[in-house]
């Protein structure tokens, strides 16, 4: 499995965003697109905190210094993603759309259902750790897919989407593309079993679809500016065709790629494009200035 693209040393960037000027419907006149993408803010704070929690426990199992350095960089980037999305939630609340009923469930999902559990040390504990590492690898396939999509989603710019929100999404997306190989390589390094890859993909994919449609419906039904807000698959499909959301066909085509035995994340997305975005992103360049 060769990684033909250049390796970039991974490091966390200390970004911060100001949400004061971001309207509730930050894709103007399109609440469905806004809220479908907003589901990210519901899932990622707890989800990426959980990545960090799991990976901290994996560090002792890594026997490869380069991979360990990648995982260390990955952890910091994920921690910053979690913090950055978390800061959007109070802004939604200020605009009359309180996300807490939903995020409290996502918190339960990652902290309890997928948490450490009281397992005897030894095989059971190791099995649960490997299972979660494989789940993360499957989820990272989709974060890289979405990251690559948002870096190329010119339609959002043409519709006048809020620049701060686009910068958050693209900074995040670019870092996801930048570190897309880490989770899968870690999975190969400590386990790599094909059966586990398929099983955890099925779990992760079903959970993502379940949580995402639920989040979009939650936002549409609770949006204070919509009288009878509804979310439907048709809305999603139509916006996918227009380039406002990921295309349904593209998403279906990415499934066999992950399940193919020759899969490697390096084949997805473009590191150079990600690095170029990070070099120009307002938030990332401000972080660079702050550190130096």
């Amino acid at each position, binding site marked *: 499995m060769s990684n033909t693209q250049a390796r970039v040393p991974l490091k*966390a960037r200390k970004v911060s965003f100001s949400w004061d000027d971001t309207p509730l419907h930050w894709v103007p006149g399109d609440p469905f697109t806004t809220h479908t993408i907003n589901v990210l803010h519901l899932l990622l704070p707890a989800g990426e905190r959980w990545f960090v929690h799991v990976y901290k426990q994996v560090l002792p199992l890594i026997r490869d210094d380069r991979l360990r350095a990648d995982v260390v*960089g990955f952890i910091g980037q994920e921690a910053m993603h979690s913090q950055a999305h978390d800061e959007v*939630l109070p802004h939604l*609340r200020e605009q009359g759309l309180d996300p807490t*009923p939903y*995020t*409290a469930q996502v918190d*339960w999902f990652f902290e309890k259902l997928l948490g450490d559990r009281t397992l005897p040390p030894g095989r059971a504990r190791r099995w649960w750790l490997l299972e979660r590492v494989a789940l993360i690898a499957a989820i990272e396939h989709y974060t890289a897919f979405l990251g690559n999509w948002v870096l190329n989603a010119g339609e959002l710019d043409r519709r006048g989407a809020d620049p701060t929100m686009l910068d958050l999404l693209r900074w995040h997306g670019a870092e996801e593309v930048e570190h897309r190989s880490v989770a899968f390589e870690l999975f190969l390094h400590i386990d790599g079993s094909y059966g586990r890859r398929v099983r955890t993909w099925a779990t992760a994919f079903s959970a993502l679809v379940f949580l995402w449609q639920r989040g979009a419906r939650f936002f549409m039904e609770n949006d204070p500016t919509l009288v009878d807000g509804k979310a439907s698959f048709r809305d999603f499909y139509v916006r996918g065709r227009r380039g406002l959301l990921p295309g349904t066909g593209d998403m279906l085509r990415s499934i066999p790629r992950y399940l193919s035995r020759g899969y490697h994340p390096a084949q997805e997305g473009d590191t150079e494009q990600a690095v170029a975005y990070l070099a120009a992103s307002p938030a990332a360049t401000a972080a660079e*200035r702050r550190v130096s």
Partner: protein
Amino acid sequence: MPKLRTAALVAGAALLARRSLRRRVQASPLWPMPALDPPVSGRPRSRALRLLLTAHETVADGVVRLRLEGGRLPAWEPGAHLDLVLPSGLVRQYSLCGDPADTSSYTVAARLVTDGRGGSREVHEQLSEGMELQVRGPRNRFPLVEAPAYVFVAGGIGITPILPMLRALPDGTEWRLLYAGRTRASMPFLEEVRGLAGNRLTVAAGDEDGRPDLDALLADLPERTAVYCCGPQGLTAAVEERLPEGATLHLERFAPRADAVGTTAFEVELRRSGRTLTVPAGSTVLAAVRRELPDTAYSCEQGFCGTCQQRVLEGEIDHRDELLTAEERAGSMLICVSRCRSDRLVLDM
């Protein structure tokens, strides 16, 4: 026709199940997942405020007063301070000296320290009205406690946390104030303090009155008097030395103590692994710990990602991170940047 009957039964059962599920979801749209109580997400730990600098004016020799405006701002009580993130990235603490009832702006004052670490110079020379500044806080390490009587000792810019305290004291409280400075012209808010304190005020300007008479100030205090002192180290040390028995001392040092700025060596005990190691000056706790425990989690090494947070069992922590909340600071630290003020730190690892 048993086949047809089975199919009809299954279809009927499926219809019923679908209907009851729909009803259940309609009654409570977020069914069937439990929620975490209390929730974690949506309460960011360090939500920085971005405030507009609407006034930057000189109020005494070498002292500027800043007014930062924003929307509904978090409330604060006398003694609280703000973390001001300067454009260069330096973070400096300034006591709030405005009116706590004003929820749309914060007021702080800063003295120029020409031989300092550059923060005050930046505040004086680089900031101007109309700029947007990042602010964290407010936090209160110097709260006004209830006491039968109060003595306040302010040295120069050290008047800033005390000023809102004077305004907040209930009528009829017994208190006095010693306000010391180099020259009268360099002492900010002198007129306002005079108006608030009247004959309870003693002004000691070094060029006119000589050294302040602390012995007279601290003589004949009622039992349980609260003594509040904010000023340079010479002044706080002198008050500490002369504190009469029965009085309680509340100190706010406006420059970190000399040993906190530099890097001194100290000892770290890792209690659970039963190891003790030395953190040399100029190195970090994380580097020392990783030599013993190479699998210790960390990432950014700059005090913002939070990966290396560890519980602290003993020792006076010198927090240098930009992430932890006040509660987290009480019992944990980010070992990549934070250090220890005492000579021994005990970590739960």
